[in-house]
Structures are given as structure tokens and as C-alpha cells.
């Protein structure tokens, strides 16, 4: 069982406020590992430290065995860390195709090519189309991304992460703002992808989490208070206490 993502003792402070408190975490190939916790637990901060946008004060981040703690964001992405953002972060002025072309281009050599249209380069477009069809957006590939429905934009967000051909996917609330039908679609999508990637899933939608996650880490005030399977989490009194009044844990 190869560990694709490992966090060792990550700590992040803002002044006297400890946002991430010595977090350890492991994700193996083919595993979906969910991080749940009440609001303000530090989930997004944790993701930002894994992706490299925030510098941890101490601790290590290991990607596929390699210590990437000091690596900048783009280097970690190139090394196999894909990310989807909680607040949709696509390029609205580009077409759907052009959005996915970006990560496709990124992993295929340098981009100092000034002449040939990216959309006319078959190799790139074919690769992009494959990812678009994976998330079900092939039909709208020529549309401007800004006019897509919210749900479609979330799918595009995912496609952009996938198009990096990453080993690890960081998914920051992929269901955020989705209605029940779209949530179901997203869950099916992720379920279909689980074998090929290791995923770190931050989510509030507990039903989705319990459907997808192999293991869960429960984050409270920046500390992992519990780590176990879905069943173990459901039965845990520690978790129940932490969540009292905050979220519903489906029985």
C-alpha cells in the first residue's frame, strides 16, 4: 500500500491562534480520505498548506515519498497534486475547452510557444476532450465557462484538477452549493474515479462523505481528534461531542 500523501506534524499559527495543531495524515493509493470538522476547524488552511499556498510553521508534507514542504504551488502541482477550490476558480472568459487546455498544456513541456493556436493542436485538444467527457462536459466544450450553470462549473473545476493527471486530488468542498441531483452526480463521478487517484476530501455534506470516504479524519480546532473508518466515526463519542449542534451525523 503506497502512501501517496503524508502529513507529519503540520503546524500553523497566526499570532497566538493555532490553526493547525500537529496534524498527521496519510492517504494511500486508491483511497478516499475525508477531512471533516466543525466550521473554523482549519480545514481550508490545512488544504492550503498541502497545496503550498500557505507556509506551515513546522512539519512536513510528503508527496509520493518526496518531501515537498518547501516547494512552491506550481511545483507541487507538477509533481502530481491536483486541487479543486471551494470557491469555483475557473477562467470564466475562456471556453470550457480552453480551461481544461491549461492543465493539459502544463504537463506537456514548456509553454513558450507563440504561434500555433492551442485549440488547433490535436494532441492537446484530444487530451482535454478525454477529461471533459470524463466529467460529462464534452457537449458544452465551446461554451464560455462563465455562462455554465453552477453545477457545470463545479464539474469543470474537477476536470481541471483531473487534467493534471495527478496522483493525489485535493478536493475542497466539491459539493458546495450543489443541489441534490447535482450532488448525486458528483458523488457518482468521484466514486468512479476512486481507483485511479488518492483523494483528500474536505466536505460538509455528511451523506456524501459517508458514501465516498474510506477513512475520515476529524479536525477540531486544528487538531485531528479522531481518525478511522466511517463506521468508527459514526460510533465515536469524541466525534459526537465535537459536532454537537454543528452538523448532523446520519445514523
Amino acid at each position, binding site marked *: 500500500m503506497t502512501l501517496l500523501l503524508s502529513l507529519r506534524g503540520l503546524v500553523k499559527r497566526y499570532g497566538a491562534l493555532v490553526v493547525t495543531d500537529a496534524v498527521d495524515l496519510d492517504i494511500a493509493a486508491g483511497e478516499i480520505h475525508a477531512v471533516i470538522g466543525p466550521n473554523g476547524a482549519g480545514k481550508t488552511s490545512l488544504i492550503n498548506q498541502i*497545496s503550498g*499556498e500557505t507556509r506551515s510553521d513546522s512539519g512536513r508534507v510528503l508527496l509520493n515519498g518526496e518531501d515537498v514542504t518547501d516547494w*512552491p*504551488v*506550481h*511545483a507541487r*502541482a*507538477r509533481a502530481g497534486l491536483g*486541487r479543486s*477550490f471551494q470557491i469555483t*476558480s*475557473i*477562467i*470564466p*472568459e*475562456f*471556453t470550457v*475547452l*480552453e480551461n481544461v*487546455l*491549461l*492543465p493539459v*498544456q*502544463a*504537463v506537456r513541456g514548456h*509553454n*513558450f*510557444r*507563440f*504561434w*500555433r*493556436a*492551442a*485549440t*488547433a*493542436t*490535436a494532441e*492537446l*485538444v484530444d487530451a482535454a476532450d478525454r477529461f471533459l467527457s470524463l466529467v460529462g462536459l464534452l457537449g458544452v466544450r*465551446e*461554451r*464560455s465557462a*462563465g*455562462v455554465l450553470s453552477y453545477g457545470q462549473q463545479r464539474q469543470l473545476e474537477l476536470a*481541471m484538477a483531473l*487534467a*493534471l493527471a495527478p496522483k493525489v486530488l485535493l478536493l475542497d468542498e466539491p459539493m458546495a452549493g450543489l443541489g441534490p441531483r447535482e450532488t448525486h452526480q458528483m458523488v457518482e463521478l468521484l466514486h468512479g474515479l476512486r481507483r485511479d487517484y488518492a483523494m483528500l476530501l474536505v466536505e460538509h455534506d455528511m451523506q456524501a462523505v459517508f458514501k465516498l470516504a474510506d477513512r475520515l479524519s476529524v479536525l477540531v480546532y486544528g487538531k485531528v481528534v479522531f481518525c478511522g473508518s466511517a463506521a468508527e466515526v459514526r460510533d465515536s463519542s469524541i466525534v459526537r461531542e465535537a459536532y454537537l449542534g454543528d452538523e448532523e451525523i446520519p445514523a
Partner: protein
Amino acid sequence: MNTLAETPSASATPRRTPRQLAAIGVIALFSLFLMAIPVYSMNSGDAYVLTIASRILAYALAAIGLNIVLGYGGMVSMGHAMYIGLGAYTVVLMHAVGVDSGWLQLLAMGLAVGVIAIVVGWISLRTQGIAFIMITLAFAQLFFFVFVSLKAYGGDEGMTLQQASDFGALTGNRTALYCALLACVGAALYGTYRMAGSRFGLVLRATRINERRVKAVGIPTLPYRLAAYVISAWVCALAGFFLANLTGFVSPAYLAWSVSGELIVMVVLGGVGTVVGPLVGALALLLFEEALKGWTEYWMMILGPLIVLMVLVFRRGLWGLLSAPHSDSDNAAEETP
């Protein structure tokens, strides 16, 4: 907002909307008009028109250069006039070391401007937002003062060219200069168009809109922004080179920050991030200035508030009015250049 030139999509059908046809028609007509000018000038003996047109084209070239870094790259450089000045002074400085050949001068200019742009660009791009704007302005002032202090080259007052750049039989030929300028402008426009749809262009434009996203897909943004900065510097320097040969005069005034400001006005007036916008903007602004100057010596009192008005009211620029509407439509992918 307007983005791009039409990109040949691998599977899009080459339909053209009426708006696109109109735009292409306008461009075609306009090109014919521009090409007719030297013919008219030769036949009628009116050199004035040629000079004015050349000057407008030179500034249009500079605006096209700025558009790469400002319109597509989203970097508000308030100091690009310095590259115009560097291009212009190349002629004088090269002459001083005995090099009069136009081609060698251009080569030297390319090297010098390339190095300077890399250094200035790298330092400036360590900052962003307001700081970037201020720093580019300050660097332009730096070079302004350098040239002011070069008493041997006219200092504050500037100096006239003792020898135009040598291009063999065409040296000093006004018509040849105009045609060369026209060719350069055309090439720059076409180059911008191709760049916008290229892999480089996609990265650059995406970085302008959402840098965080671009980094998250594994692309380091600095090298691309720096490259755009250097390319735009080269284009502006070329414009300066033409201006020096056109007017026969160089002075630190080429690097004045008001020139940088006017370049930005041209780009925005024409339509930020469109291919043809800078040409339209340069034309509109310079012709308008000529008209105003003829009317009153206090023409800047009128132009100033009009610029403010343009900012408050007129967001998408002149060319933006003609090209495709806001990206709310399905046709967003098939925009006009």
C-alpha cells in the same frame, strides 16, 4: 470583457457572424486606406500627411507593444515610454560609437533592451498591484534622468540626429520609412493575434484573470509574465527607433511619464486585450489631439476630463463596441479580432 482574437478551434465550423464580417470589412478598408497614403503623398507631393501618418503608426506600434503586457498580461506598466526612449537613443548612441548601419543598430537595440527589460521586469514583477505600477513609473524616471544627465547627447534638450540609420539606398527615404512602419504594425498585429491563441497566450491571459488557478495547474507564472514584458519592451523600442528616424530628433521627453500615460490611454481607448484595439486607440487619440491642438493651446484641459469620462463611462473601448458582445452568449468563442 473582451478577450480575444478568434482562435481557430479544432472542431468549430468557420461561420462568421454579421458583426465579425463588419469588423473584417472595416479592417480591410482601413488597410487599403493606410496603403494608399504613400501613393497619395508621392503623387501630390504632400509630405505632411506622410509624416503625420508615420507618427501615428509609430505610436500605434508602441501601443500594440503595451497591449501585450497590459491588455493580455494584465500588468499595468506606467513606464513603457522608457523603452520608446531607449529605442530612440539607440540610434544616437550607436552613431557615437561609429555604428550607423540600421540593421546593426537594431541588433544592438534588441540586445540592450532585452537585458534591461529582463532586469527591470524581474525586479518589478516581484511586486504586484499598486506597487508594480509605482515601480514601473519609477524605473522610467530613472532612465529619464539618465538621459537628461547625458550632456554629450543633448541632455535636457535632446539632440538632432547627425545621421539617420543606414539602410542602404533607402536611408532617409520617408516613403520607405512609412512602408516599413506599416509592415511592422501589420506584423505586430498579426503576431498579437497568433500569440493570443497560442499556448503562451492562454497561459498569459489566464494569469491575468486568475493567477492562483494557473499556479494550481502547475504553471509558474513569473517566466511567462516576464516574457510578455520583454516582448512588449522590444516592440516599444522598435517604435522609438522609428520615431527617432522619423523626426530626426531624440530627447528625454520620449521617456516622460505623460507619454506612458498616453500609451495606456490609447490601449484602453481602443479596447484592452483586443488585437486591433491599440491601433484604433492610437489613431483616435492622436487625431483627436491634433484637432484639439488646432482649436486651443489649453487642449489638455479638455482632454484630461475626457479621459476621466472615458474611464467612468466607456469601459470596453472603441473596438470593443464593434466586436462581439459580452461573453453571455454562445458565440463567445467566435469573437472578432
